[in-house]
C-alpha cells in the first residue's frame, strides 16, 4: 500500500472510530441546526472547519507551532460545549448577525483547535519528514467527516420525521430536534471538559 493510502486510512479511522467521540460530537453539534434546504450554510461551515484544522495540523506537525497537549485536549470539548450552547440559544438564525453566517467564522477558529489535537497525535509517532503522512491523514479525516456528516443528516431527518408526526408543526419539531440533540451533546462534552481540565 502507498504511504499516502496508509495514512488516509489512518485518518479516516481516527474520525469514524468511537474512541474519537469528541470529533464526532463536534460534527453532530455543527450539523444539528441544519435542514435539507440549509445545505449551502452547512457546506460553508464544514469547509470552514476543514480549513481551520488543516492550518493547525500543518503548522503543528511541521513544528512551526508548538501547542501544549493538555490545553488542546481540554479546549476540544469546550468548542463542542460552546457550539451546542449556541444551537440552543439562537431561536431564529434569520435574525442573527449576517443571517447566522458568523457560524462559519467561529467554526474555523474551533477547527484550529481540533487540528492541533490531530497534530499532537501524529507528531508523537513520527521523528522524520511527515509531509506524505500529514497529507494522507488529512485526506482520511475529510473522508471520515463526510461519512459522519452523512450519517448525522440521516439521523436528524429521522428525528425530524418522528417529531413532526408527534408535534404536527414542522417548525416546532425542528426546534425540538435542535434542542434535544444539542442538549445531549452538551451533556457529554461538558463531562469531557471537566475530566480533561488542565488544573
Amino acid at each position, binding site marked *: 500500500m502507498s*504511504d499516502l*493510502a*496508509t495514512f488516509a486510512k*489512518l485518518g479516516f479511522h481516527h474520525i469514524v*472510530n468511537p474512541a474519537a*467521540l469528541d470529533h464526532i460530537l463536534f460534527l453532530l453539534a455543527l450539523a444539528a441546526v441544519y435542514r435539507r434546504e440549509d445545505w449551502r450554510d452547512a457546506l460553508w461551515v464544514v469547509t470552514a472547519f476543514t480549513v481551520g484544522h488543516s492550518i493547525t495540523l500543518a503548522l503543528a506537525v511541521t513544528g512551526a507551532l508548538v501547542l501544549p497537549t493538555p490545553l488542546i485536549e481540554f479546549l476540544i470539548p469546550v468548542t463542542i460545549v460552546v457550539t451546542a450552547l449556541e444551537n440552543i440559544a439562537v431561536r431564529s438564525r434569520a435574525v442573527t448577525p449576517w443571517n447566522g453566517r458568523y457560524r462559519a467564522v467561529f467554526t474555523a477558529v474551533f477547527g484550529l483547535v481540533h487540528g492541533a489535537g490531530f497534530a499532537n497525535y501524529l507528531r508523537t509517532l513520527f521523528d522524520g519528514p511527515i509531509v506524505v503522512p500529514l497529507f494522507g491523514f488529512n485526506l482520511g479525516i475529510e473522508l471520515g467527516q463526510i461519512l459522519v456528516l452523512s450519517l448525522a443528516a440521516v439521523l436528524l431527518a429521522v428525528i425530524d420525521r*418522528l417529531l413532526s408526526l408527534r408535534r404536527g408543526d414542522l417548525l416546532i419539531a425542528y426546534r425540538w430536534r435542535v434542542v*434535544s440533540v444539542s442538549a445531549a451533546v452538551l451533556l*457529554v462534552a461538558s*463531562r469531557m471538559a471537566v475530566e480533561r481540565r488542565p488544573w
Partner: protein
Amino acid sequence: MVTVVPQFAALALRAFAALHPMHTSVAELAPAGTSVVVTIRVFADDFRTAVPDGAAQKAEPYIRSRFELRDPENRPIAVRWEEIARSGDVFQMRLRAELPRGLAGIRVRDLLLCEYFPDQVNIVRATYGGRTTSLLFTAGDQAKALP
C-alpha cells in the same frame, strides 16, 4: 422524545467512560549498510498494558512475540534487540537485522498490542530504493510482503 434524550445521554456517557486515544504504533525499517534498523514507536500508556514497567528484559520477549521479519521464502530472519528508550509520551525500541539482499520481498508481521486493544492499528514503513512504502496491521493479520 423527552424520555429518549436522557437514555441517549446515558449511553453516550458510558461510551465516554471508555474513551481512549486511538491505539497506534509505527515501525520504521531503514537500511543501514547490509543491515536494516527497525525503530518501533508506541504510546507509553498503551505499551504499559503489555509491559507494565517498560523494562528491556520484559519488552524484548514481548516484541519478539509480536513482531517478526521473514525472508521471501518465509524463513524467519534473526533480529537483534538493541535498546528501548522513553521519549516523551512514547517508548522507542530499536532492533537490527542482517539483510544483505535488502528489504524487497521481505515479509513483515507486526501485531503489537492487538491482543489488548481491538482498535489497534500498526503501521510499518520501509524506505528503500528511493521510495517509502507502508503496511498496515490490525488484529488477526498475517505476515505481509514488502514490494
